[in-house]
C-alpha cells in the first residue's frame, strides 16, 4: 500500500499561553504588579502526561493481579504447574519486533516533522512501518488466541485449575490492553493521512506500545516462574 505524503503533517508549535489553555509550568510565576515576562512553556503536552497516567493505572491493575496470584498460590494445595504453550515465545518475538518497527516509524516521522527527511528514502516509509507494526500487533493477538485454543483443546479451560485461571486472566487482560494500542496505531495512521498528527500523540502511542511489550515480558516471566 503505497502512500504519498505531500507535505509534512502539521504539528502544534510551541504552546504559548496565548494559544488557548496554556501551561502554567512548574515555576512560571508572573510577578505581581505587571511586568509580564514571556515564559517558556515547560510542561509536557497532555497526551504525554496522559499516557504516563494510563501506564501507571495499568501497572496497578497488573500489580493487583500479580499479588492475587502470589497470595492465591501461597497457601494452595491445588496449584497445578504446567508448561506454557511454545507459541508464546514466538509471540514474544513478534511483539518485540512490533516495538522495533514502531520505533523506526516514530523516528522517521519525527524527522519528517522536523524537516530532516532523507530524500534518498521513500517518503511513504513512515506510514509503511506503522502498517507493519499494526500487522505485527494483530499477529501477536492471533498468536495469543492460538495459545488459548491449544490449551482448551487439551482440556485445560479457565476453570480447570486456578493456575490456568490466572494464565487466562493475565493473558486476556494483556491482549485487551494491546487492542487499545492497536486502536492508537490506527488513529495515528488515520491522522497521518487525513488530519493533523501531533508529535505528542505519536510519541504517546509509541510509548504505550513499548509499554505493552515490556508488560508482556514481565507477564511471561511471571507465568514461566509461577506456572
Amino acid at each position: 500500500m503505497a502512500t504519498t505524503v505531500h507535505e509534512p503533517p502539521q504539528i502544534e508549535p510551541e504552546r504559548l499561553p496565548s494559544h488557548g489553555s496554556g501551561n502554567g509550568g512548574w515555576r512560571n510565576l508572573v510577578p505581581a504588579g505587571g511586568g509580564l515576562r514571556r515564559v517558556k512553556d515547560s510542561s509536557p503536552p497532555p497526551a504525554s502526561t496522559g499516557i504516563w497516567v494510563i501506564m501507571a493505572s495499568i501497572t496497578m491493575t497488573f500489580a493487583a493481579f500479580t499479588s492475587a496470584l502470589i497470595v492465591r498460590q501461597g497457601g494452595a494445595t491445588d496449584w497445578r504447574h504446567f508448561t506454557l504453550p511454545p507459541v508464546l515465545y514466538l509471540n514474544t518475538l513478534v511483539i518485540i519486533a512490533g516495538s522495533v518497527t514502531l520505533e523506526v516509524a516514530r523516528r522517521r516521522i519525527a524527522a519528517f516533522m522536523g524537516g530532516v527527511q532523507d530524500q534518498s528514502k521513500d517518503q511513504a516509509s513512515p506510514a509503511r512501518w506503522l502498517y507493519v507494526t499494526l500487522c505485527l500487533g494483530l499477529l501477536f493477538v492471533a498468536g495469543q488466541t492460538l495459545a488459548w485454543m491449544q490449551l482448551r483443546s487439551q482440556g485445560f479451560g479457565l476453570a480447570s485449575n486456578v493456575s490456568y485461571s490466572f494464565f487466562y486472566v493475565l493473558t486476556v487482560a494483556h491482549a485487551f490492553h494491546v487492542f487499545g494500542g492497536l486502536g492508537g496505531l490506527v488513529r495515528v495512521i488515520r491522522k497521518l493521512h487525513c488530519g493533523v498528527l501531533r508529535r505528542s500523540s505519536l510519541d504517546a502511542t509509541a510509548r504505550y506500545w513499548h509499554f505493552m511489550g515490556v508488560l508482556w515480558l514481565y507477564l511471561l516471566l511471571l507465568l514461566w516462574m509461577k506456572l
Partner: protein
Amino acid sequence: MHDMSAHAVGHGAPTSFIRKHVFSLDHKVIGKQYYALALLAALVGMFLSWLMRIHLGFGSFAIPGLHLLSKTGAPGDVMTPEYYLQLMTMHGTIMVFFVLTTAPFAAFGNFFLPIQVGAEDMPFPHFNMMSFWVTFVGFLFLAASFFTGSGPTLGGWTQYAPLSAVGDAGGPGQGLGVVLWATSIGLFCIGQLLGALNFITTTLDMRCKGMSLMRLPLTAWGWFITSIMGLTAFAVLMPACILLILDHVAGTSFFVPSNLVINDQVLPHSGGSTLLWQHLFWFFGHPEVYIAIVPGMGIVSHILVTNMRRPMLSHRVLIYSMGALALLSYMVYGHHMFVSGMNPVSSLAFSFPTLVITIPSTIIVLIWLGSLYGARLRINSASLFSLAFISMFISGGVSGFFLAQPSIDIMLHATYFVVGHFHLVMGVAAMFGIFAGTYFWFPKMAGRMMNETLGKVHFWMSFVGAYCIFMPFHYLGIAGNVRRYQAFTDDYLIPLVPVHKFITIAALFTGLAQLIFLYNLIHSRFKGAIPPNDNPWEGTSLEWSTATPPVHNNFGDKMPVVYHDPYQYSVEGASSDYVMQTSPEKINSPDEEK
C-alpha cells in the same frame, strides 16, 4: 472570536440538545450530570436507610407499600432478615461509591477544576464524557439488582468472600445480585479511572499563565491528590471485581476454599483464598475513605478562607498534609483486617501507620482551628456546613484512635462503634462538604442564589440530627451491640432497643431536613435570586473571574493570567478587602510566593 475559542477548547459549542445536555463534552455539563447522579443516588440511599432504621427501631412495624419493592423480601410489608441485609448492602454501596465519591470529587471537580486552573476544558473531553456515562451505566446495573428474582446482594458493601463468591447457596441475591454488584463497581472503577486521567493531566498541563502549582486553590489540590488516589485504588478494585465475577460465571476458584459446605452441599470449588478478597478490597477501601474526604477538605478550606477573609495559617502545610494522608492511606489498609486472624506482628505493622496517619489529620484540623481563631467569620449556609464538616471530622476521627489499636479493635470491630466512627468521619463529614460546596458554588453553577434561610434551617436540623443519630452508635458499640443484626432479641441487647428507637426518630427527622434542601435546590434553580454580580462571595480564585454561569470555553475570548497566590484577603495596602488572582495590582503580601 467564537470560532477561535471553539478551536482552542478542542470542541465547539454544542448546538443540539443531545450534545448539549446528554452526551456533552463540556466539563461543566459533565460536572452537573455527576451532581444529578449523586443527588439521585443520595435520595435512594437515604430512603433505604429510613427503611432500615424503621425496621431496627420498630421491628414488626409494617411499612405500607414495602411489598411493592419486593414481594419475597417484604411479605405483608414487613421486611425479612435477608431483605434487611440486602437493603443495608445497597445503602452502603450506593452511598460510598455513587454519592461520597461522585459528588465531591467527580461533580464539583469536573465543574471547577478546569476553571480554577485557568483552562478551557479537560484535555480529553471524550474520555470525560465516557467517564460519566460508564458510571451511570454502573449505577443502572446496581439498581437493576432490585428487580431480579432474588433481589440485590446481601453481603455488605465490602462483599467479603466466600459469602460473595458462593452463588445462590449464600442466600438471596448472592448469585445474580453479586454479579450485578461486581459489574456495577467494575464499571464505576473504569469511569473513575477515566476521570482521574483527566484530573491529573488538567492539573499538570492545562494551567494558565502564571498558575504555578502552589498558586492552585486548596480545592484544586484536593481534587488533584484525590485523582492520584483514585487512579491507584480503583485500578486495584477493578481486577478484584473481575476475579469475583469469574468465580460466579466461569466456575473458577479464586475466593472459595475447598470443601466448603453450605446447606449440606459441598461447593464445587477448590483452594480459594477468602483473605485474598479482603486484601484486594481494602487496598482500595482505605484510600477510598480519603477519596471521599480529601475533596471535602479542599472545599471547606476554600469556603472558610473566603468567609474568614484571611488565608489559612499555612497553605503549603495544608497541602503537604493532604498529600501525606494520601500516601499513608495505602499503608494502613490492614487495620480493617485485625479480626481476620492475621499475625499479631502484621497487626502492629498496620497499627503503627494507622496511628501515624492521625498526625497529618491533626495538623489539618489544627490549621483550620488556628485559622478560625479570632477570625470574623461570615456566617452563611456554606460556612456553617464547613464548620460542621470540621466538627464531624474531629468527632469521627477521635474514635479512630481507639480502633487503630488491634487490642481494642478486636472488641469493637463488629459493633456499632465502628458504624458510628465511619459514618461521622467519612459519611456525614463528606456530605456536609457536599452541602457546603453546593451552597457556595450554586450561584456559579446555576446562575441563581440558594435561599439562605432554608439553608440555615437545613443546616441546624442536619447538624443536630446527625449527632443524635451517630453519637449513640458509639454507646451501642461499647455496650456490645453487634452491627448487621436485623433484630435485637438477645437478653443483653433488649435494653438497647429504646436507643435504636431514638436513633430511628432522629434519622427520620434528619432525612426531613434533606427534603428541605432538595426543595431549596430545585426552587432556587428556577426561582432563586439572581446573583448581584459574578463574584457574590467576594472570592479570589478564577471561578469568580468568569461569567455566571460560565460560558462554553469558561473565559470567553481572553484567557486568564494569574498574578497572585489564591487567597489574598485583607492584604495591607491593597485597594480592597481582597485581591483576585487575575488582578495585576501590585501588593505586598507576606504570603505571596516570590
